[in-house]
């Protein structure tokens, strides 16, 4: 027979209500959430790098300002998410250490390089677009702090997606070199962004439990389909070609059919053999190690100040 606590938890889930930090929850639920939220936080932090790579070279001051603000927002998202995960009892330092050690996962999409300015557009339009499709349902995630963090994040992400679309639009209205740059970026980011939703439903063992717990609301393939359906008219508006010869409208389903994705590549990147895995981790580790003396100084200063205040009071 379930305990009273278990009953109460099951009722919350059944009523599609929020679970809060003070509530009892099953260990599996807690672990799943910590894993998912911290991975998401790590993704925001690592995800700063591909775009930070172009801050110094942004081709107009307006674009430089928008890009700086965006990358900075990503740091902010990382902070919200670490805070949400902390409410589950895992300290931020511990999660961050796991990232730096290379033991924690983050979204594979950020292991692709940003080769041209157009990648700023493609990341906004495709990567942030896929992120939003993934994340909007998470605003209703059963765990309260997570759902609320996602509400805030989704608002900013949709702003980012629109900025990405605008970058591409400007390029597609520009010179031939700019158009070519935009198409090249879309060619490189399209398939990886579709793979952001994770493996096909048949190969995604953890999804069922997450859906039962009202963490996940839609299957990987459902979300992917929704994303493709959204992209096609936007691509037409932009005038870019989506690099999938099998992409066509299916009159029967009312959806766009799309071609096979290269899941071998996905698993290679996931396993650490993507174009930038080593670089991304090394960059973050270097920032962490180079900053150690600064954090130590700040901590020592804070201790001294606290002592002085104690003496004074």
């Amino acid at each position, binding site marked *: 027979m379930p305990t009273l606590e278990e009953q109460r938890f099951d009722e919350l889930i059944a009523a599609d209500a929020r679970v809060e930090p003070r509530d009892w929850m099953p260990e599996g639920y807690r672990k799943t959430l910590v894993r998912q939220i911290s991975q998401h936080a790590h993704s925001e932090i690592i995800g700063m790098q591909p775009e930070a790579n172009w801050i110094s070279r942004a*081709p107009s001051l*307006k674009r430089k*300002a928008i890009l700086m603000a965006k990358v*900075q927002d990503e*740091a902010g998202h990382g902070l919200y998410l670490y805070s949400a995960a902390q409410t589950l009892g895992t300290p931020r330092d511990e999660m961050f250490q796991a990232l730096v050690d290379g033991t924690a996962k983050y979204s594979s999409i950020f292991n692709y390089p940003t080769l041209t300015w157009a990648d700023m557009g493609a990341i906004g339009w495709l990567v942030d677009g896929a992120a939003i499709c993934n994340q909007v349902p998470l605003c209703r995630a059963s765990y309260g702090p997570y759902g609320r963090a996602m509400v805030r994040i989704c608002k900013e992400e949709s702003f980012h997606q629109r900025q990405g679309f605008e970058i591409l639009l400007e390029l597609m209205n520009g*010179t031939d070199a700019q158009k070519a740059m935009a198409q090249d970026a879309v060619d490189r980011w399209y398939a990886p962004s579709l793979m952001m939703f994770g493996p096909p439903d048949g190969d995604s063992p953890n999804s069922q439990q997450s859906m039962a717990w009202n963490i996940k609301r839609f299957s990987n393939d459902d979300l992917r389909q929704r994303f493709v359906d959204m992209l096609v008219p936007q691509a037409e508006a932009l005038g870019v070609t989506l690099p999938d010869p099998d992409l066509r409208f299916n009159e029967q389903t009312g959806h766009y059919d799309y071609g096979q994705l290269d899941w071998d590549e996905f698993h290679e990147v996931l396993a650490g053999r993507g174009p930038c895995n080593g670089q991304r981790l090394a960059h973050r580790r270097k920032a962490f190690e180079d900053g150690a003396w*600064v*954090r130590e100084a700040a901590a*020592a200063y804070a201790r001294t100040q606290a002592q002085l205040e104690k003496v004074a009071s």
Partner: protein
Amino acid sequence: TADVAEYALWLGDDALVLAQQLGWWISRAPELEEDIALGNIALDLLGHARSLLSYAGSASGRTEDDLAYWRGERDFRSSQLVEQPNGDYAHTIVRQLAAAVSMYELYSRLQSSGDATLAAIAAKAVKEVAYHREHCVEWFRRLALGTDESRRRLEIALDHVWPYVGDLFRDEPLIDRLEGIAVRPSSLRPAFDAVIDALAAETGIVFPAADTARGGGRRGWHTEYLSLLLAEMQVLAREHPGATW
């Protein structure tokens, strides 16, 4: 007038170069909060740069981007201080200390400029720069009074950066022609020194002399760092002349 435009370039180029430098830290700062804080300061400065360069260009039909991306280093009017490299975090904080404290004094006075546009830009900027000043003064305290290592690094940074501080306070003939419009750089020095002296007394840090380097940024005499900074900043825009973004 051309003189007012030239003066707007002094301030705009300082803000632009400094924003470019601080932008580097985004994704590289010692903690996430600093990624955000330095990013905020960079964004504020970039905002000031855009207002000032737009104003500077208005006299000659040039846009902010014309000025930011299509001038070479001999035409930049930034001080030699802001082009000094990021170095470690202590170098950045020391450079930022000199920049923010002097900018705060400058914009405070420029609010009452006879030039309405400069006065309006200053009135907006001074509020933001007040925060920048707080931020780096606080970090200066942490590094000075934190650990032996942080104090050691701070002192090295001061040796590198402080000689270029004097370039912020050099009067040039231009200033004589802008009585009532520009703020005379040398007039900022006492207020600047008062802040620094107080910080020196509080932390026991001995500041090196502030004007041992030759200076001359306002006349387009720069150190070797600026041209490399501009090479990176301008590369993409220059690759596509006439393009819009």
